[in-house]
C-alpha cells in the first residue's frame, strides 16, 4: 500500500510539472485532471473516502469541465501554442524557479523532522456530514454566501458592456 501512495505522489508531481510546462492549454488541463485523480487516490488511502469522492466529482468533474468550456469557447487555435512556446523560451523562468527551489528546500528542512503521532481510523462520510452540519454549520452558510457572491460576480464580469467613446478597449 505505501508503494501505491508513493507512486501516486510521483505521478501527481510529474503531471504537475507537465501542467506548468505545457504549451497547449487543453493538454495542460488533462494533466491537471491527472494530478487531481492521483490526489483523490491518495485521499482514499489516507482514510478520507468522502474527500476523495468530492475531489473526483466536483474538482475533476465540475470545475475542470468549466475550464474546458472556457478553453473551447476562446478557441485560440494553433497560433496560441506558438505564442506559448515563444513566451516559454528565454531565461525568464530561472529567477522564479530558483525562488521556488529555495522555498521548497526551506519547507523540506522545516517539515522533515516532523513527529509522527497517532495512527488513526478512517473518517467516513457520515462523520464528515455530522461535523459539517454540527459544529461547522456557520461555515456551510458562509460557503454558500461565497458561492452566491461568485455567481453574481461572474455574471457581472461577463456582461457585454457598451463601450463609451474614449474608453480604452
Amino acid at each position: 500500500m505505501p508503494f501505491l501512495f508513493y507512486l501516486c505522489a510521483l505521478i501527481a508531481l510529474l503531471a504537475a510539472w507537465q501542467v506548468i510546462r505545457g504549451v497547449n492549454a487543453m493538454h495542460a488541463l488533462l494533466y491537471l485532471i491527472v494530478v487531481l485523480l492521483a490526489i483523490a487516490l491518495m485521499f482514499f488511502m489516507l482514510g478520507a473516502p468522502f474527500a476523495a469522492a468530492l475531489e473526483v466529482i466536483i474538482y475533476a468533474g465540475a470545475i475542470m469541465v468549466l475550464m474546458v468550456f472556457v478553453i473551447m469557447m476562446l478557441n485560440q487555435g494553433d497560433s496560441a501554442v506558438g505564442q506559448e512556446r515563444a513566451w516559454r523560451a528565454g531565461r525568464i523562468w530561472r529567477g522564479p524557479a530558483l525562488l521556488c527551489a529555495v522555498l521548497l528546500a526551506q519547507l523540506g528542512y522545516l517539515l522533515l523532522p516532523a513527529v509522527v503521532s497517532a495512527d488513526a481510523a478512517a473518517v467516513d462520510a457520515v462523520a464528515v456530514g455530522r461535523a459539517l452540519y454540527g459544529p461547522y454549520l456557520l461555515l456551510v452558510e458562509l460557503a454558500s454566501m461565497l458561492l452566491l457572491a461568485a455567481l453574481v460576480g461572474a455574471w457581472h464580469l461577463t456582461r457585454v458592456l457598451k463601450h463609451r467613446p474614449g474608453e480604452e478597449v
Partner: protein
Amino acid sequence: MTAWLGWIPALPLFSSLVLLLVGGRLGQRLVTLLGVGSVLGSALLSGLLIADFLAEGAAVTTRQLPWLSSMGLEVAFGLYFDGLSAVMLGVITGVGLLIHLYSAAYMAGDEGYARFFGYLNLFVGAMLLLVLADDFLLLYLGWEGVGLCSFLLIGFWYREPANGYAARKAFVVTRVGDIALAVALLIMIQQFGTLHIQTVIERAQLQWLGSDWSFWVALLLLGGAVGKSAQLPLQTWLPDAMAGPTPVSALIHAATMVTAGVYLIARTQGIFLLAPRIMELVALVGALTLFLAACSALVQHDLKRVLAYSTISQIGYMFFALGAGAFSAAIFHLMTHAFFKALLFLAAGQVILSLHHEQDLRRMGGLLRRLPFSALCFAIGCAALAALPLTSGFYSKDAILLQAYGLHGGSLAWWLALAGAAVTALYSLRLFLKLFFGEAVTEPSPDMRPTLVVPLALLCLLALFGALIPQPLGAVFAPLAATEVPAAVHGAILIMPWLGLVTGVLLWRYGRGFRQRWSDSALARSWRAGWGFDALYDGLLVQPLLLLARLNRKDLADRPVQFVAWLSARGHAWLSVTQNGRLRRYAAGIALGAVLVLTVVTL
C-alpha cells in the same frame, strides 16, 4: 413684547442658513419667499417693538444666556434695546426690507440667486446682532459677520478677477480696523474683566477719569470705526466695493454696514467723552474725509463710484458730528442718509439695468424723457443729498452744522464741513445733469416691474419726509446745552448748497471749455484716483511687504518642512517603481517575502 427681541436677528440668520445649505435646490419663488419673508418678519417685529418702546420708553435687556466662561471672564448672549438700537433697527430692517424687495427683481434669473439672498440675509442678521448686542463680544461677532458678508457680496460675481480683488481689498483694509477694535476689547477685558457694554462704560467713567487708558481705548475704537465706515485713512476700499451687485452697494456700502462705525462710536460715547483729544480727532477725521471724498466725487466717471465717494463723504459728516459732540444729529443724519442713499443706489441700479449694465457717466445723458421715473428718484435723492430745503437731508445736515457750531464754534473742521456742503451740492447737480440732460448716448430700455418701482417710491417718500420720523434718543445721549448761533452762521449754512447749485448751473451752461480742461488736469486726475491714497499705500505698505516676502522666501524655518516634502516625494518615486502593474511581479514579491520569513524562522 421683549421676548420677541431675539427673533429679530434670528429670523434672517435662520433663513440664510437654509438658503446657503439647500438654496440651490429651491425654486426661485421659494427663495424669494424665504429671503424677503424673513426680513419682512424682522421688520414687522422691529416695528412692533419700536412702537412699544415709544410708548413706554425704557431700555430693555433680554435674558442672558451664558456663552463663554474663562479665567474670570464671563460672556453672555444678551440683547440690549434702547433708543439708539431702535433707530438702527428701524433703518436696518426698514431699508433692508425695501432693498430685499428690489433685489428680488434686480437679481431675477441670476444663477446665484439663492446664494445672493443667503448672503444678504446673513448680512441683515449679523448687522442686527451688531446693533442689538449687549456685549462687546457679541457686537464683535456681528461686526465680523457684516465684514464677511461684505467680502462675499463684493466678490459675488466671482468669475471676474477684478471683483475678487476688490473683495479681498475690502476684507484686508477693514481687517486693519478690526484688529484695532479687537485690541480695544482685550484692554477692556484686562482692565474690567468684563465685556458687558453698559458695565464697561460705567466702570470706565469711574476708573478712567484722567487716566491714559481712555485715550488709548477711544483711539483703538476709532480705528475700528474708521475701518468699517471707510473714513480716512482706511477709506480706500469703499470705491472698489462697488464691484458687487447694485442692491448690495445700496444695502451694505451705503445704508447700513458702513454706518456701523458711527453706531460704535455713538454706543461707546461714554468712553469717547473721557478723551477730549480723541473727540477732536474724530471731528477732524470726519471733516477731512467728507471734504476729500466730496472732491473725489466731483470728478468720477463711474456712476456708482460717484455714489461711493458721496457715501464716504456723508459718513464723514456723521463722524464730524460725533466728534463735535452732536451725537443725536449724527444718528439723525445716519437715518436720513440711509434713506436717500439707498434711493440713489437703487435708482442708479435701475438706470444701469436699463442701459444694459453701462456704468460710465460719459456714455449716459439725455435720459430725462426716456426714464422719467428714475429721473424723479434721482431728483429727490440728489436734492436730499445736497441738503435742499424740505428734504430730509436738509434737516439732518442743518442740525449737524448748527449743533457743531454751537458746541465748538468755527474750528477748522467746521469750516471744512461747511465748504463740503457746497461741494456736495455741486457734485449732486453734476450727477443729475450728466445723467438726465445733454445728448443721449445710449438708448435705454425701461424696466418698470412693480418690485423695482414700489421700493423706489417708498424710499422717495422716506427721503423727502424721513426727517419727520421721531428719534427716541433722549435717554441715550445727554441733551445739548442750548446755545445761540449767530444769524450769519445760520445763513451761511442755508446758503451753501445753493452756492454749489448756482456754480454748477453756470458751469454747465457756460463753462463747457473750462469743464473740458478741468477734467484732464492733474488735480482732477488725482481726485479721480481718490487723492492717490491707493498709490500711496501700494508704495508704502504693499510693495515693501512683497519685497520682504521675496527676500524671506527661503528662510531657515522652511527647510525642515521642505525636507519632509522632498523626502516624501523621493520615497514616492522609489516606491512607485515597484508599482509596475505586473501581476507576476507582485506574486514574486509575495513569494520572496515568504522565503525571507521562513529564512528567519529557519535560522
